[in-house]
Every structure is written in C-alpha cells, then in structure tokens.
C-alpha cells in the first residue's frame, strides 16, 4: 500500500513538473512572439507614417508576417485620421489586394471568417466594401452582422443609416452596436433618429434621444422636450441629459419642472442639464434641491449651481443649514477659480 502511494505521489510530482515546464515554455514563446511583433512594427512604422503623409514610398520586400504587421499599424492609424490621409490608407489596401482578399472572405462558409473579414474591411477604409457590408448586416450570424455594423460606422457609410436605424429599432443587433455605428456616421443620421423618438419602445427611444443629444442641434429641442413628460422615467432622464447637451435654452422651463420629478435620477439629469444650459432662473430651485433632496440629486444640483452662478453658490453655501453638497461645491469652485 505504502509502495503504491509512493508511485502515485511520484507520478503526480512528475505531472506537476511537466505542467510547470509547459507553462514556462508557453510564456517564453508568447514573449518571443510579442517581441517579434513589436520589432516588426517598429521597423515598418516609418513606412506607414510616410504612406499616411503621401510620400512616394518604395517598400522593401516584406514576408507575410511583415505584411500583416504593416497592415495592423495602418489599420490603427486609419482609426485616428480623416481626409486625404485616410484615403491614402484605403488606396494602399486596395492596391495591394487586401480589400479584394477580405471581400472574398465575406462569402466564406465559416462565420468567424466572415466576421473577421467584415471587421477588417472597416479598418482598411475600404469604401468599395460598403455594398458587401450592407449585405453582411443581414447575415444570419449575429457576430458577422455586428462586425459589419461597426465597419459601416467607421466608413461613415450614409447608405447604412436606414438599415442601422432599423436594427436599432428591432434589436436584431445589440443596440449599443447599432447606436455606436450611427454615432460614427454622425449628423446625417439625425433625421432618421427623429423618427425613432415617436411610437417606439422606451429602450429604443433612450438610444435615439441619446444620439440626438450627441449629434443634433437646437432644432431638435422641441421634439426632445416633449419626452420630458414621457411615462418612462428612463426616457425622461435621457431626454433631460440630451437637452443639456443640445444647450436648449427653450427647454429651461420644462427642465425646472423636472427638478420635481418623483424619480431621483430624472432630477439628477434635469439638474445637470440646467447647469449645462446656464439657466439663471434655476438658481433658487437648484439651491433648494441641493439643500433638501437625496444624495445624488442634491449633489447634482450643487454642481449645476456652480456652473450657473458661482456667486449665488457662494452666498447660499455660507448660509445656515446649507448642507454638505453646497459647501463642497463652493469649495471646489473656489479651488478652480
């Protein structure tokens, strides 16, 4: 019995040793691969930068690994630049056949390959890929459709506004993905987003109103203002936030009314919005909220008051019974002054 236990413990010790050796070997291999990648990117970076700047570059002969490394660097740069620099990156991928290669993979029977191609085409600034990516939006695999949506957003494809808005409405894609793509496309998406403000479930409305807050202008204020009376507290809160972002002064009355909303996070957002608008008529209401409301709405009101009128804040913060939020906001304002 003791002899058998000895054999078992010996075998376990050997197994542990082998496992440790395997993990150590794996770690060394990964570190080498990472170093190789960093070295290749370092070597190719001047070529990538010259290419972005429109220099006539004669690339040295590159092996497959180096070609991939150059493509990775250029794809990263494509996220940061616009205009002629972006067009040059697109032309590079087009001329080298990368776009055609990835487009062929969009037809692959394996979903992961289609998703990878859809993702890559967005990074290549490949406008020629827009029709294929629009088709990929209806791919039965959700990951492929989501990758196509992201790429269409990065390409700023105006043709994608309608299908993306549809996807936002029916939830066929994760709504955050559709919304992000529409945000990347920018203000041209706003007219279609306005349509989503009416007669849609509240989970759709909140995305639409957030996007309008980010992409819209003063002319959107009346439609967003109406949502301050929505039955959904989520919608009311997001509408208040959007009005603040739009700088909608005409919404000040309605936002002051929203300071009395029965839901605390609506009051928080109303206070933020009044601060962003700089509504001088809201000072008394904000000061009251900062004194008597719960923690979050009171803190939001005090911060908003600091933005609207530091003088009033200073006066009310030093009055008896001002409470901690006004005092704290006044201290912060004093430090920043």
């Amino acid at each position, binding site marked *: 019995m003791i002899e058998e236990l000895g054999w078992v413990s010996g075998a376990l010790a050997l197994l542990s040793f082998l496992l440790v050796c395997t993990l150590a070997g794996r770690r060394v291999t990964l570190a080498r691969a990472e170093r190789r990648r960093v070295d290749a990117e370092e070597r190719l*970076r001047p070529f990538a*930068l010259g290419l*972005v*700047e429109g220099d006539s570059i004669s690339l040295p002969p590159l092996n497959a690994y180096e070609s991939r490394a150059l493509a990775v660097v250029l794809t*990263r*740069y494509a*996220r*940061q*630049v*616009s*205009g*002629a*620099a*972006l067009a040059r990156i697109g032309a590079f991928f087009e001329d080298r056949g990368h776009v055609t290669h990835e487009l062929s993979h969009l037809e692959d029977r394996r979903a992961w390959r289609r998703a990878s191609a859809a993702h890559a085409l967005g990074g290549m600034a490949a406008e020629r890929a827009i029709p294929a990516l629009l088709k990929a939006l209806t791919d039965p695999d959700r990951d492929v459709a989501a990758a196509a949506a992201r790429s269409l957003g990065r390409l700023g494809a105006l043709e994608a506004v309608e299908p993306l808005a549809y996807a936002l409405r029916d939830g066929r894609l994760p709504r955050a993905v559709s919304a992000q793509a529409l945000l990347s496309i920018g203000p041209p998406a706003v007219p279609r987003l306005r349509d989503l403000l009416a007669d849609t479930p509240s989970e759709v409305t909140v995305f639409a109103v957030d996007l309008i807050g*980010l992409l819209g202008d003063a002319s959107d204020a009346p439609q967003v203002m109406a949502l301050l009376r929505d039955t959904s507290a989520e919608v009311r809160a997001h509408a208040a936030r959007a009005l*603040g*972002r*739009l*700088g909608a002064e005409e919404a000040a009355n309605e936002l002051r009314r929203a300071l009395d909303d029965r839901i605390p996070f609506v009051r928080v957002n109303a206070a933020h919005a009044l601060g*962003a608008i700089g509504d001088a008529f809201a000072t008394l209401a904000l000061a009251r909220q900062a004194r008597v409301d719960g923690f979050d709405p009171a803190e939001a009101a005090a911060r908003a008051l600091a933005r609207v009128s530091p003088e009033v804040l200073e006066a009310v913060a030093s009055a008896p019974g001002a409470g901690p939020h006004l005092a704290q906001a006044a201290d912060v304002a004093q430090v*920043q002054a």
Partner: protein
Amino acid sequence: MSENGQPLILIADDDPDILELVSFRLERAGYEVLQARNGEEAVQVAIVRRPDLAILDVMMPRLDGYEATRRLREHDETRRMPVILLTARVQEDDIARGFEAGADDYVKKPFSPQELGSRVQAVLGRR
C-alpha cells in the same frame, strides 16, 4: 523655441498612435516636438520646457485636456502659451468648455494631419 531655433511644440495624448502621427507631421514641418502621455505630465513638461504651443487631447488620464489647459493658464511660465485641444467631442457645450478653460483652438478627432498642421501654423502666426 528649441535650442536650434525651431519652434517647440508639446503634444499630449494617451494614445501612442496619435503621438506618432502628430509628431511625424510636425517634425517634417520644421517644428521640434515634445511628447507627454497624460495631462499631469503635459503640465510639468510645459512648465519646465516652455514650448511655443501645446496640443492637448481632451480625454487623458490623470488630468483631462480642459483641466490641463486651466493649470497652464495659472502658471506665469505658460500663461500665454497657445493651446489647441484635440477632441472627439464636438458638441457646442464641449467646445465652449474648451474655450472657457483657455484653449485657443480645437481640432476634431479623427483628424486630418494637414488641417492640424495648418491650425498650428495659424495659431503660432497669430502670436
């Protein structure tokens, strides 16, 4: 000015790709470039080296671009130094916040290197 008489420009961004792209454009336009990875480092470098202009990302760790601009305005060494904000936020409120903090101009991300070069030249020319 740098030691060799070239205008000295500070670029601060937590994204190394942006630092590379902006530095490359500015260096070939004849400027000497200093880099910082966050707002706090940008303020420290600016106070010590006194660049002719700073390009600050708005969303940076430790100190955002607005706060970094405000701090630069508080120091005698950097009070009059022009600041260009590099920002993905282009809502009126965000732009106004940048100007309130003391920025002279802003450039929207993703950015055109050519446009950024022109803005730098214009802002330096105004001084």
